[in-house]
């Protein structure tokens, strides 16, 4: 749930498990609970303004639009926990999605290849970022801003104008239901499961360590540069998965599709209680933060707010959510 909680490995007794769970709850930061509370409020608010919120049809539509942002937020969470930031993630998602569209070209037999290409392109973008940041030792915020320009340009070279199509199977499957639950909801659960698995890998534990204190990590024989590079590769690969979800949702390619997701993903991780200074937070928070952010927009759309007032209302509500989340985040270092 939160940072590395030493679990009673090897001692599988139920009592130890329970003790571990209690310890985990105790150690969970206040901000993790805050994002859960914010999420509950956002769901309640959305349900109250959108009368059909809990009907299968609305759930399908809501979760289908949520999945890409949730995946991008998880991608952003990985590098932010590692003490970095990726301002190019939106452009990486975009170039991954247009490349996949060009590869798939609407053919069913190229579905899997296209999806793998998207993930590979995303990972390659991450590799470029990671190598520049770790080897040239440049500041992540500036590097990824510069590479976002490169990736966005590359997307335009691959697919100059919106178009192309993806196989019908994936767009149909994306809006299908399984056991009465929308595919989007399954994918959200799968994203959480993915984080659960990732957080148990040595790489992600090292990412926490490097984000928390690179000097101490270096002294502890953690290969800091390699961990940094791999964290950006993982981020890019998750962005590639998000690109596939975007394609499944929209059905065609667009060379600008993901550009707006970068800043949303950063806002989502902060709402999710992940410290931008690195080392603290959890992917669960990023997922919850992204859902909260999307539901805020959704509620304002369904509430009878006049069109011209919508951006103002959503801006103020988002700042309020950020403030609640940031205020409960206890900082090791004293803040001003």
């Amino acid at each position, binding site marked *: 749930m939160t940072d590395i909680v030493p679990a009673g490995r090897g001692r599988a007794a139920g009592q130890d498990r329970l003790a571990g769970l209690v310890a985990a709850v105790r150690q969970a930061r206040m901000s993790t609970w805050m994002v859960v509370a914010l999420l509950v409020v956002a769901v309640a608010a959305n349900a109250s303004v959108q009368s059909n919120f809990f009907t299968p049809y609305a759930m399908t539509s809501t979760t289908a639009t949520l999945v890409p942002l949730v995946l991008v937020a998880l991608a952003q969470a990985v590098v932010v926990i590692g003490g970095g930031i990726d301002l190019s993630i939106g452009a990486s998602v975009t170039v991954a999605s247009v490349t996949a569209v060009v590869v798939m070209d609407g053919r069913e037999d190229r579905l899997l290849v296209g999806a793998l290409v998207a993930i590979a392109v995303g990972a390659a973008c991450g590799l470029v970022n990671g190598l*520049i940041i770790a080897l*040239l030792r440049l500041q992540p915020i500036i590097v990824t801003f510069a*590479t976002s320009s490169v990736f*966005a340009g590359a997307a335009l070279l691959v697919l100059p104008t919106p178009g192309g199509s993806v196989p019908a199977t994936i767009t149909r499957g994306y809006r299908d239901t399984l056991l009465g639950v929308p595919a989007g909801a399954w994918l959200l659960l799968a994203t959480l499961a993915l984080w659960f698995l990732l957080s148990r890998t040595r790489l992600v534990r090292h990412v926490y360590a490097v984000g928390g204190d690179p000097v101490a990590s270096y002294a502890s024989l953690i290969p*800091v540069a390699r961990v940094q590079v791999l964290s950006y590769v993982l981020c890019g690969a998750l962005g590639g998965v998000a690109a596939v979800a975007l394609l499944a949702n929209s059905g065609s390619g667009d060379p600008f599709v993901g550009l707006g997701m970068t800043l949303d993903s950063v806002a989502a991780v902060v709402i999710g209680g992940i410290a931008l200074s690195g080392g603290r937070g959890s992917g669960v928070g990023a997922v919850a933060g992204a859902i909260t952010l999307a539901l805020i927009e959704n509620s304002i759309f369904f509430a009878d707010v006049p069109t011209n007032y919508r951006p*103002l209302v959503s801006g103020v509500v988002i700042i309020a959510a950020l*403030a609640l989340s940031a205020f409960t985040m206890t900082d090791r270092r004293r803040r001003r």
Partner: protein
Amino acid sequence: MSTVTRPAPGVGAAPAAERAARLRRVARDPIVIAGAVTVALVVVGELVSPGFAGWGQIVNMLRVASFLGVVAAGQTIVILSGGGGIDLSVGKVATFAAIVGSRIMQGDDAGVVAGVVVPLAACALIGLGNGLGVTLLRIPPFVMTLGMTGVVYGLIMVYTNGRADGRAAPALTTLVNGELVLGLPGVLFLWAAIAVLVTWLLRRTTFGWRLFAVGASPEAAELSGVPVRRTVILAYVAGSVFAGLGGLLLVGYTESVMLNLADDYTMPAIAAVIIGGTLAAGGVGGYLGTAVGAVTLTVLTSLLTTLDIGSAWRTVVNGVVLVALLSFYGRQKRLRA
């Protein structure tokens, strides 16, 4: 830089070593590097497209750079304040000032004073909001100013109902587009005055000293009796006011206003500050470097436009050059110290 020789033993070695060290320092100075890159870009431009380095062209590039330079003045102050200080709202704030200003002016010189003072006052309030959010609500600057971008966009939509109107006053247009002395537009003199003012503010005033102290270490500053919160809040107010001023100058250049007039100035303003040698972590830097960085970025953009390589390649090359430029000096220390 590469031809630094070992000082010869004996008398006279000390001055030689000193000179070599000074030379090395100069060659590593970001302002010198950015200036040299700018000159190189102009030379390349002249080679591929004769006339690129003509007097009129250079004046025009400086004119366009002045808007970015003024917006980036505020960004410099915010980044110097440290603690992850950054203002992502400057583009929207500049647009906001231009929209409010041109509606008040309505293309008439009678409204020029109100058309400048009212938007700048509104921008100061926005900056106050940023500063309070960062200090009192403890929201990280990155997302606080990002959230403020949404709020300012909201204000623009409410204020304009989605349709910008009004025009810049002729006096403002003349300042930016007309020639004042020696074929130079007045805006360049204004920019020079702002550069002197900001440098004086940073180097010779209490606020400037406090800003550097807070940027280097808020804890040490606090313990030394520096009002940390007030200094940070003032930095964000300055950030928004300079952004607004840049927006007003830009609308003097374009004369009519659009809903997204200056939105794209945010990231270039940050890039100009970093290219100018100000540390992203705060506490080290100054405005002269930022001004040179603004010119560098503007010349790069003009060169890429002149090359006629298509917008896709233009964005790609822009990013590559930015990384190459930063790899000269933006590098951080090795962990293995």
